[in-house]
């Protein structure tokens, strides 16, 4: 615990040190980023220790505010969520050091590092805190710190808008959490988690609590339709921040959900159904929206919604397994969902780094303006490819492992008797659809950005990024491969986590765990075979072609006279069949200036896919309510006589009411 506290202290200290040295961009970045890296390394030690069968650690001191106490504990669940926090934060700091150098001298970097470090620190506290006030404070600091990072480029109106939406959404989510914590500690003079007094709670109150939790935490996690802030905020932030936000910060919502629900004891059956419903809608709609995006970071942001949906599916399977007393299904669901948390941190962090690298050197995030970047930036390209394959859930990478566990849990659950089977089948179908769409989407993103010929001068200007940015990407890519190939080992860390998350006893978990993860051995075996085979075939091909005359020629142009880079298929056209097919959900807006006349000059075709929830739900609702309310503004019309009349009427009304 001392190490964790040390790490926290160091985070804050280095943040303020960075702020103080704001005058020198170099020192600011150094202090800020190395502070994060060092404290993450320090923090990893106890986290890993606890996960590796170590005892949970506690620390509690009183705190001079009402209802609060500085009560923190490091148990397996906390440690599990701390793992990606520390790893990705350290890498993001390293990456950011180079990435932010572009702004040196143009903008003060001190605040950026301060907020970055505070963001990391607040996430650590969120996972550790065992007191409602402490949790909420850390939660809000997390929001605020990330808000300031999102609006780093506040000279852009888009950034400001994104920041506002993010802040408001997060705050509304927090309002639900406030209610949640208050109700959990009903009648208690303290908000310590261990004093939550729940057995006495009637069933309907439990239902209310679950709803509050799912809305409050779901807003942060990005469950549809609470996700609207996500596609705005992630693209606006600097890339290392996007990667941290998407990779771990939104997972704090998942953490909160799992942690709070773990205090509720036996859960109603509909809870699992609800999560599966949320998971399906978030997963499918998230990936569909991603497919329709032209902005790389926006695309990645929607993929975060998708992956949160997958995690929710896993948890939903788990909770249904608990509700129907199917421990194996529960373990599989939870294991898949939780492992996906780490996996998503790895590959989404990697992808945002890659996106940042591309945007950094080309100056654009428009997928359709890029092309051919793989040759110009091989490191970025290859790592991005690994990330893309991983997020698409392809073997032998990590994304497949977690999705496999969820699938397997759903298959298991589907073939057990009980009404949960229907939900499980929905999970199977949904996951298959999500998988196909994600794979399509990343084929598009990777293919259009990195392959082919550069479509614009932006893309032609691409060059490899410095080592400071390459190394984090390479490490994360290695992580994706490592978790994929070391899956049986990777899931072992879950043994300690699952009792906390599921409420099942450790022996029960130990009983079903081997059966649950047994297939992973085969998967890893086949993955190894796959890689070996690919390598073998490559050698074979190499052997065959050596000595033969391999001709270089232009791409087969089907008889066109002069194929150019601009004739290449674009991302929009690539995705068009799918977006067209799902047009009902996407409501893509098309704008066509058709060529006309015998010698047409300018023609333009444009598609734009705004968020349907934002466009058709949130914005109109807000406008309606506002329009209704603004009629009441007549009240303040400026006429003194009537103002005095208000006083008289109020007085008379009170007299009539109270003196009857």
């Amino acid at each position, binding site marked *: 615990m001392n190490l964790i506290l040390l790490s926290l202290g160091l985070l804050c200290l280095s943040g303020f040190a960075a702020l103080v040295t704001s005058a020198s961009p170099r020192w600011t970045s150094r202090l800020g980023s190395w502070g994060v890296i060092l404290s993450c390394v320090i923090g990893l030690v106890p986290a890993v220790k606890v996960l590796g069968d170590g005892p949970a650690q506690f620390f509690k001191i009183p705190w001079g505010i009402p209802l609060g106490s500085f009560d923190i504990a490091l148990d397996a669940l906390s440690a599990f969520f701390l793992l990606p926090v520390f790893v990705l934060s350290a890498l993001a700091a390293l990456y950011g050091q180079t990435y932010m150098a572009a702004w040196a001298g143009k903008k003060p970097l001190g605040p950026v590092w301060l907020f970055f470090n505070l963001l990391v620190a607040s996430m650590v506290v969120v996972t550790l805190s065992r007191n409602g006030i402490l949790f909420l404070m850390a939660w809000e600091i997390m929001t605020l710190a990330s808000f300031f990072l999102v609006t780093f480029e506040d000279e852009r109106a888009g950034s400001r808008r994104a920041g506002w939406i993010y802040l408001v959404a997060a705050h509304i989510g927090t309002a639900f959490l406030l209610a949640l914590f208050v109700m959990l500690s009903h009648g208690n003079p303290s908000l310590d988690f261990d004093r939550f007094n729940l057995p006495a709670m009637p069933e309907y109150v439990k239902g209310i609590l679950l709803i509050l939790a799912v809305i409050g935490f779901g807003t942060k996690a990005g469950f549809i339709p609470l996700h609207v802030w996500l596609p705005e905020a992630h693209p606006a932030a600097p890339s290392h921040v996007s990667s941290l936000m998407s990779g771990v910060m939104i997972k704090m919502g998942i953490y909160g959900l799992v942690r709070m629900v773990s205090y509720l004891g036996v859960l109603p059956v509909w809870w699992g159904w609800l999560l599966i419903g949320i998971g399906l809608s978030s997963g499918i709609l998230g990936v569909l929206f991603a497919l329709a995006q032209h902005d790389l970071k926006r695309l990645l942001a929607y993929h975060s919604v998708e992956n949160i949906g997958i995690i929710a599916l896993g948890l939903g399977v788990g909770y249904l397994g608990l509700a129907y007393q199917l421990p194996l299904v529960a373990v599989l669901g939870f294991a898949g969902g939780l492992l996906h948390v780490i996996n998503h941190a790895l590959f989404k962090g990697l992808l945002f780094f890659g996106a940042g690298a591309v945007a950094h050197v080309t100056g654009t995030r428009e997928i359709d303006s890029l092309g051919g970047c793989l040759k110009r930036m091989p490191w970025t390209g290859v790592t991005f490819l690994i990330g893309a394959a991983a997020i698409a859930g392809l073997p032998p990478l990590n994304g497949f492992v977690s999705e496999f566990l969820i699938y397997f849990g759903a298959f298991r659950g589907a073939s057990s008797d009980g009404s949960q089977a229907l939900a499980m089948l929905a999970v199977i179908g949904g996951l298959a659809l999500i998988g196909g769409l994600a794979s399509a989407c990343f084929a598009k993103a990777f293919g259009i950005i990195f392959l082919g010929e550069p479509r614009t001068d932006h893309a032609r200007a691409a060059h490899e990024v410095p080592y400071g940015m390459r190394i984090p990407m390479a490490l994360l890519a290695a992580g994706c491969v490592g978790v994929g190939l070391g899956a049986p080992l990777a899931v072992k860390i879950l043994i300690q986590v699952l009792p906390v998350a599921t409420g099942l006893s450790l022996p029960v978990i130990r009983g079903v765990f081997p059966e649950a993860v047994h297939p992973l051995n085969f998967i890893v075996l086949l993955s190894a075979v796959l890689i070996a085979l690919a390598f073998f075939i490559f050698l074979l091909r190499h052997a065959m072609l050596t000595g033969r005359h391999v001709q270089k020629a232009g791409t087969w142009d089907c008889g066109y006279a002069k194929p150019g880079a601009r004739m290449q298929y674009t991302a929009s056209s690539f995705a068009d069949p799918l977006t067209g097919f799902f047009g009902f959900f996407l409501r893509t807006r098309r704008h066509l200036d058709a060529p006309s006349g015998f010698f047409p000059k300018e023609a333009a075709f444009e598609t734009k896919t705004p968020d349907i929830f934002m466009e058709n739900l949130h914005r109109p609702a807000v406008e309606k309510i506002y329009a209704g309310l603004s009629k009441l*503004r*007549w*009240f*303040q*019309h*400026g*006429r*003194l*006589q*009537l103002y*005095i*009349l208000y006083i*008289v009427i109020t007085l008379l009304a009170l*007299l009539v009411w109270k*003196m009857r």
Partner: protein
Amino acid sequence: MQELTEIVMVFLILANLWLLASSRLMVCIRIVACQGIVISLLPFLINRHLLLTEFLAVAGVTAALKGFVFPWLLRRAMREAKVRREIETSVPYSVSVLIGILILAISLWISSRLPMPKPELTELIVPVSFFTILVGLFVIVSRVMALSQVLGYLVFENGIYAFGVALLLEQPLWVELGILLDVFVAVFVMGIMIFHISREFDNINTDQLSELADWNSPEKEGRR
């Protein structure tokens, strides 16, 4: 003595109604002044044994303020602001009188709901003071000119004084004096403000004093 008190009460009621019916500003000021003098002498009508020097002093000061100083302040403001002699109202005078009678009914109802623990107060004094208070408020609400609002405030104040006159006697003197001082300063400051309003706007109609608002009426929109 009962009869005398009741006569005074009837006078107050009539004065209020007259105030509502009158369109002449000077007349109104005089009515309010008379009302103030009568009310300041009210304690002696209610309780004869109070002819002590200190109470006499208070009553004297009150009468002087209400009967002479305030009217003088108002007239001065009128002169300096070059106010028109006619009162402008948003409610016609005839309707005002009708509403006045309605207010009288309401006052009687309210006072019937509030039994006085002190029987020595006459029956009429409570409803009459309520009536005066409400008439004062009605004048503030219905009259357009800033000056008549001050007038309304004075009537309102008179009503409260009439109500409290008997009760305040039990309270320490200088509380009463403090209250009087406040009222005096209030009227004084209001007078100054009226002067400034007239200088700024060329008249003292409060219609123009409705620019600070969070809602734009159609006519205001049209003006812009």
